[in-house]
């Protein structure tokens, strides 16, 4: 019964082997992306260029400036007394923050009076803006607290009483808060969504463009046998790719991995069939290789990147976003990957995601089976 599928699988394997450039690229590109993200991506916002407009020009205002400059978060670009210079720096992006110290700053500080100063943060890159905002709040807050503490001490009050409520923060799963621990496994999920789908996207449409699809139409192979024969070798290639990426993540990048390799691999195998299935379905529905490639690219990368929980928790998305997330198979695999790498949960935690992946895959192949017609025209 599987003979015909096997024959098609053999033919597909041979075809894959005979385009070594393509086969090589489909392994090389993911590995390169992994290297790039693993080694190069620092999401940490540091060395932000900062400029000061110092109208005060006293030892105290310089001390205030030093609070920023002596942190690794800011790099001093300029201290001027001209508003225009600073505005120009912000406009051209050479400075991301401008702190405007008013004249009389030192007098107010010495005279134990409150003083306010203006800070302008470049908000054109919002994440960076948010982080910058936080840094300024913290550095200014510490300075302010020092003034307040000194004042209170002089009034004869115990400064320990300043904070009647304190917070104890503990960090789970990734206690050292290293970004590689989420970026490297996350990018593996994205890569395994895109590249297998691109491989699968060619399977039918290439034969259609070359005209060899008629050989398949005329053959005794049934529709499901054709799909199966095409999907299996490519899914196994994908699984191999997963093994390479997994090895890189653990050995090369030293990503924390505390869960079960077997659970992860079962998930990866399902995911391989699923993403090849996405490509295969696109391949059945499109009429040109270009269209197949474009559609596959569009339905895999952007949704997986934005909605799978790669950068933001799925739970923080709104209803539309959560619905979008539920349509992306990467969401389910991401859940398994995060669990296996960082959380080390029991098998029962993965059941839902594994089941969802299996159901998703089944639906994809059924749709492809329905859409594939062994007819001309």
């Amino acid at each position, binding site marked *: 019964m599987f003979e015909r599928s096997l024959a098609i699988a053999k033919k597909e394997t041979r075809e894959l082997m005979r385009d070594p450039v393509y086969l090589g*690229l*489909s392994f090389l*590109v993911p590995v390169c992306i992994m290297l*790039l*993200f693993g080694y*190069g991506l*620092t*999401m*940490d916002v*540091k060395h*932000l*260029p900062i400029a000061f407009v110092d109208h005060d020009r006293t030892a105290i205002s310089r001390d205030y400036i030093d609070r920023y400059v002596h942190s690794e978060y800011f790099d001093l670009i300029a201290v001027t007394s001209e508003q225009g210079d600073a505005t120009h720096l912000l*406009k*051209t992006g050479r400075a*991301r923050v401008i702190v405007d110290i008013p004249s009389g700053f030192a007098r107010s*500080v010495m005279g134990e*009076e409150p003083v*306010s100063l203006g800070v*302008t*943060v*470049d908000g*054109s890159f919002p*994440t960076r803006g948010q982080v910058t905002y*936080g840094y*300024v*709040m*913290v550095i200014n807050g510490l300075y*302010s607290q020092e*003034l*307040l503490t000194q004042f209170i001490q002089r009034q004869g009050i115990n400064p320990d009483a300043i*904070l*009647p*409520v*304190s*917070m104890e*923060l*503990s*960090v*789970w*799963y990734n206690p050292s*808060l290293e970004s590689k*621990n989420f970026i490297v496994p996350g990018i593996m999920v994205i890569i395994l969504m*895109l590249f297998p789908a*691109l491989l699968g996207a*060619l399977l039918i449409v290439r034969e259609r*463009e070359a005209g060899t699809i008629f050989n398949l139409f005329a053959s005794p192979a049934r529709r499901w046998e054709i799909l199966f024969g095409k999907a299996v070798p490519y899914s196994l290639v994908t699984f191999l790719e997963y093994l390479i990426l997994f090895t890189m993540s653990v050995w090369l990048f030293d990503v924390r991995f505390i869960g079960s390799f077997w659970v992860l691999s079962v998930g990866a195998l399902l995911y391989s069939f699923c993403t090849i299935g996405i490509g295969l379905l696109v391949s059945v529905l*499109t009429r040109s290789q270009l*269209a197949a*490639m*474009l559609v596959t690219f*569009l339905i895999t990368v*952007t949704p997986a990147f*934005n909605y799978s*929980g790669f950068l*933001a*928790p*799925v*739970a923080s998305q709104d209803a539309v*976003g959560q619905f*979008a997330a539920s349509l992306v198979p990467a969401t389910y695999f991401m859940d398994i990957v995060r669990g296996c790498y960082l959380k080390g949960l029991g098998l029962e935690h993965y059941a839902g995601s594994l089941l969802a992946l299996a159901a998703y895959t089944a639906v994809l192949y059924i749709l492809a089976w329905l859409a594939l017609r062994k007819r001309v025209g």
Partner: protein
Amino acid sequence: MMWRRLNAMIGKEFLQLFRDVPILFILTWAFTGIIYLTGHAISMEIRDYPVVVYDLSQGSHSRELVSRLQKPYFKVVDYVYSDAEVTAFLDGGKASLAVIIPPDFEHRVNEGNARFQVISDGTLSVTATIAGGHIAEIANTFSRDILLKQVGLTSAEFERLPQVDARIRIAYNENLTHAWFSSMLEMLNMATMVAALLTAAAMVREKEYGTLEQLMVSPLRPAELFVAKIVPTVVMVLLFSLLALFGVIKGVFDTPIRGSILLFYSVSVVYVFAAASLGLAIAVLARNIAQATMMLLLILFPMMFLSGAFTPPESMAPWMQYASLISPLRYYIDFGYQVLFKGNGLAEVWPDIVGIFVVGAVMFSFAVWRFRQVYK
């Protein structure tokens, strides 16, 4: 003479493009739906960060504290009543932060030494760090308010105490609306990818169908052939960018466009020309569309990666800062944000324009040179 040849070829390319109705549909989706999806998603910013609360104290102070965990940063997803439930919420990723308030919170607040516990899911380390900062700030403000109440200071009196009040103004994007940034970024990325892929495909298709030989024996020169392949792409990509810019970025997300659209589009012509040249350079090397796509991704990912959209250029390692100089996308993104978003003019953006010209010219020359070598 040259114009007649070019005209004929460009006409043929346009005809081929417009007859491919599925591709037109796909491009429409790419420049509307995909850009909407990208802008709509939450990315690395803290917005509606999911919090689960386990309040053992159930007093007025604890309720006051919990009520401060509010939008836009936090969203309380549920109240639970056991440690096991807290763990389940964090394990399942249903919450990224757990706030646990001990039973003695109420009276210890009055004694001045209350504590509460926060468990943070550190998986997404960047957002976890930002969220930790925000909740620390909430705790501090809460603490201060309690103190003020205890010593009987009104907030007006408090404001007269010595302190530095930093009035932070966010320029260009007051509320740090992420959609403004991400939707525009996606448009610039999409323009790059589509320009390179469409051109590469138009060229590789001639190879696959064997019609390239016909073009070779025609009087068309290589540079003319290349220009003819690029022009329709430039026109299409710019038209679709207009759709994206006014239909989605401005139309849906209401992003302010402060600069000169004319300047943006004049430079975009050059940029898209450069990106299309990249597609040609690839098409010379690739034998089929599959290979071309892979090669393109091999180049595009590092390009997007080095563009400064993921990591601000100033935070990159030095070798990356230098490497980013050869990524045309880096100049284009910087240019796009400066013009559309900051409202800058030629005086500020000329270095980016020079960068785009130089990188584009190098790519186009490389493609023509390789093509001559291969098909002499």
